C-alpha cells in the first residue's frame, strides 16, 4: 500500500471528528439560474427542422421554385410582347420545336443537334442568303453498293435557330423606312455592299423565279436534250418549290437533279454556271438596283432574315432556355406560369380544405357519439366518390354554362375541395379523440370552461403541428392530381389560356419522338417539385412531433 498523507480508515475504524468539514459553511443554497434561454414550442420545432439537412435543402429549393414562378413571367421579355402581334400569348411558329439554348457560342446548350441529311438538302442550304448557317458539316459518307448505286449523306450539326428567310412579311411604309434607316446606320444594307452584307442584312431583296423558270431554264434544259413535256412538268414543280414558304431562302437559280441520265422533276439542286458559281434571281429595277419590297393594298411585303428581323422588331434575341414546343411557345415561360398556377391552386385548395376539415373534424371528434357516427357516414360517402368523377361532372357542367379560365379554375376547386378535406377532418378527429379525455382538459372543464374554450384554447393548439403538416403534405397531392387531370384532358384548357404542367406534359408527349425536350423539362421539373415537397413535409412532420424533443441531443 502506498504511503499517503491521509490516513485510510476501514469500515470498523473510528473517524476522529476533526476530519469532518462542512460543505456549505458560508454559502446558502439557492436554485441555480438557468443559463440557457427558454425554448418555446415554435422555436423548438424550428431547431428540430433545421437539424434535418435534407428538409432544409428541400425548403430552399421550394423557395427558389416559388421565386422562379413569380419572377420569370414578370421578367421574361416574351411575356411583355405586344398583344396585337400575339393575341394568345407569345408564340412564333417559325421557332417551333427549337432546342434549348443559352447562347449561340457555347459548346453545349446552344440549340444545335446532330442530324444526317441527304446531299440535296445540304447543297441547297449551303447557298443560303440567310444570316445563320443551318448546317455545319461534321462528316460526309457514301452509302450504297454498285448494284443500287451510291449516294452521299452528310452528318451535320443543325442549328435549330437558323430559321432562315421569310418572305411575305407585311409592314407599313413608316416601319419599312425605319428598318431601312436602321440598316443604313448599322452598315448592314445589301445595297451598299452586296457581298459583305449578304449574310448580315435583315432585309433581303425580293426574288423573281418566274422569269427564270419560264425563260432561261427552258433554254438550258433544251440544250441538255430534255423533252418539252418533261420541261413543262419540271417548270410546274419548280415553281411550286420556289413558292413553298419553307424554301423562301432559295435566292438562286435551281436545276433539276439528275438520276442516272434523266433529269427528274422531284428534286432540285443549285444551278452552277460555267465558273462553278450560283446565280441569284433577285429582282432588280431599271437602274439595276435591288428591290426590297412589293407594294400591295397600302402595305409593304418584305423578305427578311427572320431571326434578325425578330431581334429588331421585339428588341431581344429570341433564345429559348428550355426550347420551344410545336407552336413556338417558350417552355420556360409556360413552365413558370404553370408552376404559379399549380402552387396557387395547391395552397388555396389546401387552405380551404384545412378550414373545412378542421371544423368538421373538431365537431365530430369533440362531441363523439351519435354526432360522430352520422358525420363519419357522410364523410365515408363523400370520400368514396372518386375525384375524377366529380371533376368530370363539374368540368362538363361548368364549361357548358360559362366560358374561359373561370370555369376551369372553379371546376378544379370544386373537385379538390369536394373530398380533399376528408383527410384533414379524420386527422383532426383523431387528435380530438386523443386529447379530449386527458386530465388537463378534464381539469379545465371542472373549472367551468365552455366547449368553445376547450376546443380552441386547449385541444387545438396541441393538434396544430399534426394538422399543419397534413395540410402541407396535401399540396403535392393536389399538384399531382391537377397535372394528371389536365394531362388526361378531363379538364378542357383549350379555351382558357391557362398553362399548367399537365398541359405541358400533354403537348410534350405528342411530339416525344421528334423533340423530346418538350416533354423532358416539365417531367423533370415536376419530379423535383414533388420530391422537395415530400422532403419538406416529412421534415415538418418530424419537427412538430414533440415526442422527438431532445431525442437526438
Amino acid at each position, binding site marked *: 500500500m502506498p504511503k499517503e498523507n491521509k490516513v485510510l480508515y476501514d469500515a470498523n475504524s473510528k473517524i476522529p471528528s476533526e476530519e469532518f468539514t462542512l460543505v456549505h459553511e458560508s454559502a446558502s443554497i439557492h436554485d441555480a439560474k438557468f443559463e440557457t434561454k427558454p425554448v418555446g414550442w415554435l422555436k423548438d420545432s424550428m431547431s428540430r427542422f433545421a437539424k434535418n439537412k435534407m428538409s432544409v435543402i428541400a425548403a430552399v429549393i421550394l423557395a427558389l421554385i416559388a421565386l422562379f414562378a413569380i419572377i420569370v413571367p414578370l421578367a421574361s421579355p416574351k411575356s411583355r410582347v405586344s398583344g396585337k402581334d400575339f393575341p394568345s400569348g407569345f408564340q412564333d411558329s417559325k421557332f417551333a420545336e427549337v432546342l434549348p439554348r443559352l447562347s449561340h457560342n457555347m459548346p453545349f446548350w446552344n440549340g444545335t443537334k446532330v442530324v444526317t441529311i441527304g446531299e440535296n438538302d445540304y447543297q441547297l442550304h449551303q447557298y443560303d442568303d440567310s444570316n445563320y448557317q443551318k448546317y455545319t458539316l461534321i462528316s460526309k459518307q457514301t452509302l450504297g453498293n454498285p448494284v443500287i448505286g451510291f449516294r452521299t449523306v452528310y452528318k451535320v450539326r443543325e442549328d435549330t435557330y437558323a430559321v432562315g428567310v421569310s418572305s411575305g412579311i407585311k409592314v407599313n411604309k413608316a416601319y419599312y423606312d425605319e428598318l431601312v434607316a436602321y440598316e443604313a446606320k448599322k452598315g448592314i444594307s445589301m445595297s451598299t455592299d452586296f457581298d459583305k452584307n449578304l449574310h448580315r442584312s435583315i432585309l433581303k431583296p425580293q426574288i423573281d423565279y418566274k422569269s427564270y423558270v419560264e425563260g432561261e431554264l427552258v433554254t438550258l434544259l433544251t440544250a441538255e436534250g430534255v423533252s418539252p413535256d418533261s420541261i413543262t412538268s419540271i417548270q410546274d414543280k419548280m415553281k411550286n418549290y420556289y413558292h413553298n414558304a419553307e424554301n423562301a431562302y432559295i435566292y438562286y437559280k435551281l436545276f433539276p437533279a439528275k438520276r442516272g441520265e434523266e433529269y427528274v422533276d422531284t428534286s432540285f439542286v443549285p444551278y452552277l454556271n460555267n465558273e462553278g458559281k450560283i446565280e441569284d434571281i433577285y429582282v432588280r429595277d431599271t437602274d439595276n438596283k435591288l428591290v426590297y419590297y412589293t407594294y400591295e393594298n397600302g402595305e409593304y411585303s418584305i423578305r427578311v432574315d427572320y431571326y434578325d428581323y425578330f431581334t429588331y422588331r421585339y428588341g431581344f434575341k429570341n433564345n429559348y432556355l428550355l426550347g420551344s414546343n410545336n407552336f413556338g411557345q417558350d417552355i420556360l415561360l409556360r413552365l413558370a406560369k404553370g408552376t404559379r398556377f399549380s402552387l396557387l391552386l395547391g395552397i388555396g385548395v389546401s387552405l380551404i380544405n384545412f378550414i373545412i376539415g378542421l371544423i368538421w373534424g373538431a365537431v365530430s371528434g369533440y362531441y363523439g357519439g351519435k354526432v360522430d357516427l352520422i358525420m363519419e*357516414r357522410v364523410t*365515408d*360517402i363523400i370520400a*368514396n*366518390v*372518386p375525384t*375524377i*368523377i366529380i371533376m*368530370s*361532372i363539374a368540368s*362538363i*357542367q361548368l364549361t*357548358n354554362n360559362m366560358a374561359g379560365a373561370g370555369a376551369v379554375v372553379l371546376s378544379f376547386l370544386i373537385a379538390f375541395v369536394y373530398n380533399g378535406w376528408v383527410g384533414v377532418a379524420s386527422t383532426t378527429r383523431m387528435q380530438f379523440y386523443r386529447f379530449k379525455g386527458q386530465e388537463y382538459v378534464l381539469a379545465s372543464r371542472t373549472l367551468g370552461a365552455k366547449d368553445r374554450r376547450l376546443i380552441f384554447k386547449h385541444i387545438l393548439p396541441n393538434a396544430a403541428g399534426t394538422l399543419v403538416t397534413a395540410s402541407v403534405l396535401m399540396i*403535392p397531392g393536389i399538384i*399531382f392530381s391537377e*397535372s*394528371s387531370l389536365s*394531362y*388526361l*384532358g*378531363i379538364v378542357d384548357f383549350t379555351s382558357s389560356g391557362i398553362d399548367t404542367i399537365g398541359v405541358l*406534359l400533354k403537348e*410534350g*408527349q405528342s411530339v*416525344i*419522338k421528334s423533340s*423530346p425536350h418538350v*416533354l*423532358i423539362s416539365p*417531367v423533370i421539373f*415536376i*419530379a423535383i417539385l*414533388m*420530391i422537395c*415537397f*415530400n*422532403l419538406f413535409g416529412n421534415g415538418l412532420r418530424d419537427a412538430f412531433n414533440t415526442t422527438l424533443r431532445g431525442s437526438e441531443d
Partner: protein
Amino acid sequence: MRNVKETLKYILKRVLLMVVTFLVIFVISFALIRALPLNFSGGSGTDEMKFYMQQVAIGRMYEKNGKFYENPIPVQFFNFLKNLFNPYTYTDPESGITQVASRWGYSYKVEAGLTADQVLFRHLAPTVVINIYSSLFSVPCGIGLGIFMALKKNKWQDNVLSVVIMLFISVPSFVDAFLLQYLLGYHWEILPPSVASLTENGIFSPVMFQSMILPVLAMSLGSIAGYARYTRAELTEVLTSDFMLLARTKGLRRSQATVRHALRNSMVPIFPMILGEVISVLSGSVIIEQIFTVNGVGGIYLDSINSRDLDVFQFVSMFYILIGLVGSLVVDISYGIVDPRIRMGGGKDNA
C-alpha cells in the same frame, strides 16, 4: 377460431354498410350525371333517331308528337330501377327487331351500337392483364427489397436504397412512365413505346407481352417502392422485438429466427395490402393506360368523358366505385382475420 359467429356478424355488418354506401353514392352520381345536358352531336355510327329511341327505351326521354323530351331526374331514376328489374323492350328503328332494352344504357360514340356493359367488358382484358403482370412483378420485388433493407439496416445498402425508394415514392407515376417511354421506347428503341393492338394480336401473344413491358414497369416502380418501404418498417420493428431475442437465446440461428418468426409476423399487415392490390387489378391506372395507349377501361372512361357518352361514363364510374369499395372492405376484414390481435368491430374499450 374463438368467435366465428362474431366475425361473421362483423363481416355481414360491413358488407351491408358497404352496400348502403354504394347505393347512396350511386344515387348521387346518377343524379349528377343525368343532370348533364344530353345532346346528340355527331355520334359516329349511330343515327340520331336510333339514339333517341334508345334513350326512350331506357326511360331517360319520352316522345311527344315526334319530338323527344327528357324526363325529370326522379322519373328517370324510377324508370331506371324498373328497367333494372324488369327490362323494357326496345325496337331497333333500322332492323325492326324487338329486343330487351339494355339495363345500363347504350353507347353512341365510344363504341356505337353496343350497350354500356358490353363496352366495358370488351376492354377489361388488357387492363386486367397489365395489372396482373404488374402485381406479379411488384409484390415479390418490393417485399424482397424490403427484407434485404431490413436485414442490412443502417448499412450503406440500406441507405442507398432508402434514398432511391424515397425518390420513387415522391415522383408521380407518370414521370416514371414518360421517362421509361422516352428512354427505352424512343431513344434507345429497346422496347415498343406503346401497347400493340389487341385486334391484331392475341392478349397473351409474345408481341403483346413485349409491348406491355413498359407500362408494367412504369406501374410497378412506385408500387415496388411502397412495398419495400412498408416491409422494411415492419420487419425492422419485428426484428427488434422481445420474442426475437427469446428465439435467439433458445438457440435459433439468425436466419432461422428471421425466416420462421420475424418474416411471418411482419407479413401480417402486408398481406391485406396484397389482397387490396389483387382486387384493384380490375380498375388499373387511367394515366398509364393513356400514356402507353392501352386500349383498356381507362381509355374507355376518358373517351366517354370527352365525347359525353354518358351511359358508358356512368357505368364505368360505378364500376370503379364498386371496386374501390370492395377493395377497402376486403382489406379491412382481412386485417382482422390475419392478425388475431385486432379484435374486429371492437369498440373503444376492447380495441
